[in-house]
């Protein structure tokens, strides 16, 4: 009797972990957040800073966010994921703000699920939708100039490309 009661309590309720922060992101930390004894799969996507854009040498990137709305939009993505893939257990989305040096992570997304297909598809959905709808902006700093970027996924800017 007690045994079943105990099992119930440790069912590992699905959780969303959302964070925008200016410190370095940790892959270990984000993947640990979503690991679950009920899951056999964790899928991750890490967006890293590239050293070049159209032949120009990028020194580093700078990210800005409309923070409160960005968090709201990421919560919406999590809610959509749970509707599309009900077996998904935990979701973690960490996005870095401010300066991000070359090769460091600007975003880490991790999703756990009992079987792998769901977490793989959910991670792909998360990063695609984040790029299309979360109000965060990236400035590329070159050696002697800078440029604000636009995601091709941005839903209201597409028509002009």
């Amino acid at each position: 009797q007690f045994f079943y009661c105990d099992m119930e309590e440790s069912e590992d309720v699905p959780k969303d972990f959302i964070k925008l922060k200016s410190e370095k992101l940790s892959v270990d930390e984000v993947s640990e957040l979503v690991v679950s004894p009920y899951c056999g799969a964790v899928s991750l996507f890490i967006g890293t800073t590239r050293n070049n854009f159209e032949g120009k040498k990028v020194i580093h990137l700078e990210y800005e966010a409309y923070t409160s709305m960005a968090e709201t939009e990421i919560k919406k993505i999590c809610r959509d994921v749970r509707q599309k893939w009900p077996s998904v257990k935990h979701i973690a989305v960490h996005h870095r703000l401010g300066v991000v040096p070359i090769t460091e992570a600007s975003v880490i997304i991790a999703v756990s699920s009992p079987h792998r297909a769901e977490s793989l598809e959910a991670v792909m959905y998360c990063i695609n939708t984040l790029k299309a709808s979360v109000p965060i902006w990236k400035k590329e700093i070159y050696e002697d100039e800078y440029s604000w970027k636009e995601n091709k996924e941005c839903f209201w800017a597409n028509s002009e490309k």
Partner: protein
Amino acid sequence: MCQPLASYWLGHTHHVKLAGLRCETLSVPREITSLQLWEEIVKVHPRLALIRDQVVFAVRQEYVLLGDQLLVLQPGDEVAIIPPISGG
């Protein structure tokens, strides 16, 4: 009837930076279409007209395209001008 409206300006794009804005308050009719609201803002900051085709609003943190959609605003509502995003 006019209501005070907190406009949150995202000043990170070149053009919005030129307008020298981050955040300010504007009084507009309580019921107004999103395009009319844009035109009210452009009256105050004419240089924003340059980015008309590149932006949407976020009204109370929900995206609203510039067009015929009627907004019913409350005092203190936050409206942001959102240029193309590039997170990830």
